[in-house]
């Protein structure tokens, strides 16, 4: 059995008698909002709790458990099926890193769709966390020449090579820097996460990300009940709402339990490698130390933990 989450959290405010100022102000705001909207919030018992929902890092362990239960209830109502929501903490002494072998990738996009299924992305409209770029072998890596919308009968197309891009989980992430409300941050294991319940949908992070890795829910995500992955994480693959940003989380729900990310698992050619950068005996460390490795847009000093290499 795992322990309750022990993510580093600021000391929760001492329980005050009656309402704190914050609660009082927020309740007032809610009353205003409920009066102003015609969506029938007032009739919804959970709506108030969701409106005053605290930032993930402000939740005490007890509040977090309540919140998880509440969320599961909400999802059951919404989808008519049981969805488990956990908040698995990062492991000690782990810093995740990813490597992708450009000489092996064939551009089949199995990773793209494996990711969609694993991470409960919207099916209508389609949301993909991974973008596979097709480029000319003659040109080499030149994004201005890249095509993300290729549609061949079979891949790889002659003369082309493929470069999948998703969140690079930067050590110095510009998206985190610009978020006006701290709705996105870097976890101790290096994963950049988003609190979907705190995001205000301003999309500054999308503008700031140099890798086009972030996705916005322009409308309510369409997720059919029978295609849901019911094992979900608060900061990861739980079903998202309209109007918030999402992106690759290195399959937080899997990697924090010692599994590979889904894209690593489904890749038919073994182009994708994953592991602990702090473990000198790991495969990822072997690749970095022995292969011709590069990172995307190195000059921006984002320090990605996503490494491209030529293995063959």
């Amino acid at each position, binding site marked *: 059995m795992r322990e309750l989450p022990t993510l580093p959290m600021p000391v929760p405010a001492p329980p005050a008698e009656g309402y704190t100022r914050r609660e009082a102000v927020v309740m007032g705001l809610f009353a205003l909002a409920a009066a102003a909207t015609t969506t029938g919030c007032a009739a919804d018992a959970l709506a108030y709790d969701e409106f005053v929902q605290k930032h993930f890092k402000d939740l005490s362990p007890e509040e977090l458990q309540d919140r998880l239960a509440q969320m599961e209830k909400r999802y059951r109502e919404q989808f008519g099926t049981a969805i488990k929501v956990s908040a698995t903490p990062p492991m000690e002494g782990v810093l995740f890193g990813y490597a992708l072998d450009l000489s092996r990738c064939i551009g089949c996009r199995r990773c793209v769709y494996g990711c969609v299924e694993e991470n409960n992305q919207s099916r209508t409209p389609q949301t993909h966390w991974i973008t596979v770029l097709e480029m000319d072998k003659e040109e080499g890596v030149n994004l201005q020449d*890249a095509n993300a*919308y290729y549609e061949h009968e079979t891949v790889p197309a002659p003369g082309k090579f493929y470069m999948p891009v998703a969140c690079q989980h930067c050590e110095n992430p510009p998206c985190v820097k610009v978020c006006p409300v701290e709705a996105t941050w870097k976890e101790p294991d290096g994963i950049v996460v988003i609190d979907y319940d705190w995001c205000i949908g301003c999309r500054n992070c999308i503008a700031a990300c140099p890798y086009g890795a972030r996705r*916005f829910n322009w409308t309510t995500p369409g997720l059919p009940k029978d295609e849901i992955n019911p094992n979900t994480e608060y900061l990861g693959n739980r079903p998202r709402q309209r109007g918030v940003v999402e992106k690759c989380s290195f399959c937080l729900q899997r990697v924090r339990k010692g599994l590979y990310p889904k894209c690593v698992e489904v890749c038919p050619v073994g182009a994708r490698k994953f592991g602990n950068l702090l473990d000198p005996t790991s495969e990822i460390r072997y690749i970095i130390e022995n292969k011709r490795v590069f990172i995307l847009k190195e000059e921006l000093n984002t320090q990605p933990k996503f490494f491209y290499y030529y293995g063959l």
Partner: protein
Amino acid sequence: MTILRKFGAFVTGSARLAFLGGNRYYYAWLAVLGLCIGQALFAYAHQFQVGLISTSMRDSVSWGYYIGNFTFLVGVAAAAVLLVVPAYVYDWKPIKEVALFGELLAVAAIVMCLLFVLVDMGRPDRFWHILPFVGRMHLPSAIMAWDAIVLNIYLAVNLTVASYLVYCAYHGIHYNKKFVWPLVIFSIPMAVSIHTVTAFLYNGMASRPYWNSAILAPRFIASAFCSGPALLLILFQILRKVSAFEIKDEAIHKVAELMAYAMGFNLFLFGAEVFKEYYSDTHHLVHYEYLFAGLHGHPSPIAPYAWMSLAFAVISFFLFLIPRTRRNFITMNVGCVLIYASVYIEKGIALIIPGFTPDQLGQVYAYVPSVTELRVAAGVFGIGFLLFTLMVKVSVGLLFGGVRERATG
């Protein structure tokens, strides 16, 4: 208690002044603005229901017309108050009025800015997350959090000064200079800071080479000094026709002259940017190619506007530079319209869209605002102009209309 009663009388008296005693054109203007707002409510209700998918924005071009308008209006708000500086330096007689109308314009412009941000938000119900104390402002790192702070302080300062001046006029008391002038003086660096911080919002993102240029903030200030005064010059001419408001021709021509310098500087900065991009000819040039022509053989939908903006800027520069056309009210007013249109296109269209096109992975999405975006934007402008009109009506009535006796008696 008396102060409360006095304030209550001020509010009801102002409301009476705002809505009563206008001429035909005044009510027609209000009706037009009402229609703009009314139709926008339906458009926004639709957007609220289905989400921002009703706009043309997508992950590739994730900010568009709304944020462009926001940026433009920050400039208007900043420049409106900066007009106090020449009014002081050249000792124009109605400096109090110039300051007051500048501040009223700033208030209306900031309200529009905040509304444009609100309609652009994916989760407007969570706006309180960015409030101090109850929310979680990401300071000092997030420029957007700073922008929220400076815009709201600026709004508060201008609202305070403007309503205090009008309140004093209503009750026929002389305003306290020791209270007003420090705030007016404070609002001048604030005006510069709101536009600078807004420029830094774009400027600070290394992911977008189109904005990642050190002269972005100076360009913002220069272009704002063109668009804000353009509005005020037209307003001053209307006011001195329909009310006892007096401003000398010299003052108006002096503002036009200052606008010529601002536009000249703006064009110089733009030229410096264009030189750097085209001469160094790096991959970053693609954004300028998209702005002025197109990419991969497809013409860009914004290119005609970009050229129009440039042409308007050059024409209005000469109209304001040459003393004869500057002093001729017809050519000067043509210049005002051109300069306003030029900066509107520059900020509303030419600043935001090319920054996102092509996107960070080289993909081109040809963004053109959707009907919903245009309708909602019309409504936001409707609200802003309505607010400005009503505030000006009240102020003019109190300051020059001889309405004071009627209102208190």
